[in-house]
């Protein structure tokens, strides 16, 4: 953490980052955040590995210590051997505690991966379309599905289960506004909706078993507000457009238009890799721009 800049430390602490910066500054900040995430994930992995290995060795060492103790009850052994065995057990127990606490602590500092899979490549691709010297307004919430974002929590008819609970999280993690060349504006909003199903069932032995399933619905909304002096929404092109049925179009006042599309991910949708690809985002931008045509002269 010491090697990271102040905005990144703040972003990790709060789970949010927002502001107006140039594309290069954003790419550098997000790149740093991405590196931080990779470091943290690797550290978390190492903590869990340490705890797991220490547990395995302790199980062997504990047995050995018990045997040594039993042996010492009947025969004389040097007390240093027993002390050394106890000390080793204590060290191993300390390693387990350290690894577990470290894992839990680092898990609390997790930031969602969507920005590095989606936003960074997309920014790189539209970098040359941005107005030189313009700033990108960006608001990122990287906390993922946390308590504050719970939209609804309810019990469902259990069916074969003992208990079935559905929790819905609504997470608008990205809001972006960029000024393109000639003053056109491109706006993106991405909302992740997480559906968490927690079920409890009883197995034939009478034990209670718990299972959690996640679904993720990503809604991408892109708007373009063209510079009216140069471009306008062309009704003919709108009619001829070949956008898929899954994409919703809305024309707005002031000559702008909006496209939105939902993407569903399941199962194990909480996994880091489950998000919209940059290609989809760029494709949406291309669809939006394809509705435009040059404004009538003198407008």
């Amino acid at each position, binding site marked *: 953490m010491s090697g990271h800049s102040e905005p990144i430390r703040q972003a990790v602490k709060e789970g949010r980052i927002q502001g107006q910066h140039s594309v290069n500054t954003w790419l550098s900040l997000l790149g740093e955040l991405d590196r931080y995430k990779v470091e943290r994930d690797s550290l978390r992995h190492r903590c869990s590995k340490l705890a797991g290995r220490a547990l395995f060795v302790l199980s062997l060492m504990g047995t050995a210590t018990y045997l040594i103790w039993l042996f010492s009850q009947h025969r004389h052994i040097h007390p240093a051997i027993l002390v050394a065995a106890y000390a080793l057990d204590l060290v191993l127990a300390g390693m387990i505690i350290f690894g577990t606490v470290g894992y839990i602590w680092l898990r609390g500092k997790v930031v969602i991966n969507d920005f590095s899979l989606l936003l960074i490549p997309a920014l790189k691709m539209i970098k040359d379309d941005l107005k030189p010297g313009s700033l990108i307004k960006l608001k990122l919430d990287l906390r993922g599905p946390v308590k504050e974002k719970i939209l609804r929590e309810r019990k469902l008819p259990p069916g074969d289960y003992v208990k079935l609970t559905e929790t819905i999280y609504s997470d608008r993690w990205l809001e972006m506004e960029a000024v393109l060349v000639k003053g056109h504006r491109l706006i993106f909003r991405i909302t992740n909706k997480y559906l968490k199903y927690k079920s409890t069932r009883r197995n034939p032995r009478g034990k209670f078993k718990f299972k959690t399933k996640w679904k993720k619905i990503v809604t991408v909304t892109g708007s373009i507000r063209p510079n009216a002096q140069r471009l306008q929404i062309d009704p003919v092109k709108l009619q001829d457009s070949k956008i898929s049925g899954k994409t919703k179009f809305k024309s707005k006042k002031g000559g702008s238009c909006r496209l939105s599309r939902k993407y569903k991910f399941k199962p194990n949708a909480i996994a880091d890799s489950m998000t919209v690809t940059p290609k989809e985002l*760029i494709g949406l931008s291309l669809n939006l721009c*394809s509705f435009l045509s040059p404004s009538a002269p003198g407008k």
Partner: protein
Amino acid sequence: MKDFSKLSCRTKKGLLFLRDCAEIASAWCGRCGRPICSRHQMMVESLLACPECAAALEKEEPQDSEYTTGWEDVREEVYDRLADTPQAAEYTTQERNRLYVEFGYIPFFYGSHHYYSDSDFQTFDNRFIEHDPKDGPILAQAGQTAKDDTGDELES
């Protein structure tokens, strides 16, 4: 020796809206003849080419596995490694052309050159060019029919 000091690079940059690169040129493309800056010079089959011609030449040949890994791999594996190199420019051009085909997009062009490529065929034809008195350059989109002063469509 040709003097490049007054020429700007005519390679197109951008994705949604194409523009001239406008860096100072230092060579000519051996295929289309446009002036190109040092960042956009590529050697393809011992020919100095612009990224667009290089992408077109690559398309004619079996592609290198590095360039066919798909968009998802752009993130670290390809794009970062090639950032700000001629290879990155060529890769971007290839990707750009693929996206235009896939999404049926015909790009707008804010520029000033007349070098033909698959995605800016309007630059072939002056009728598609709208001169802007303030910015000088051009605003046009392929597929649109230019109109004369009376609003009637011009003949091909």
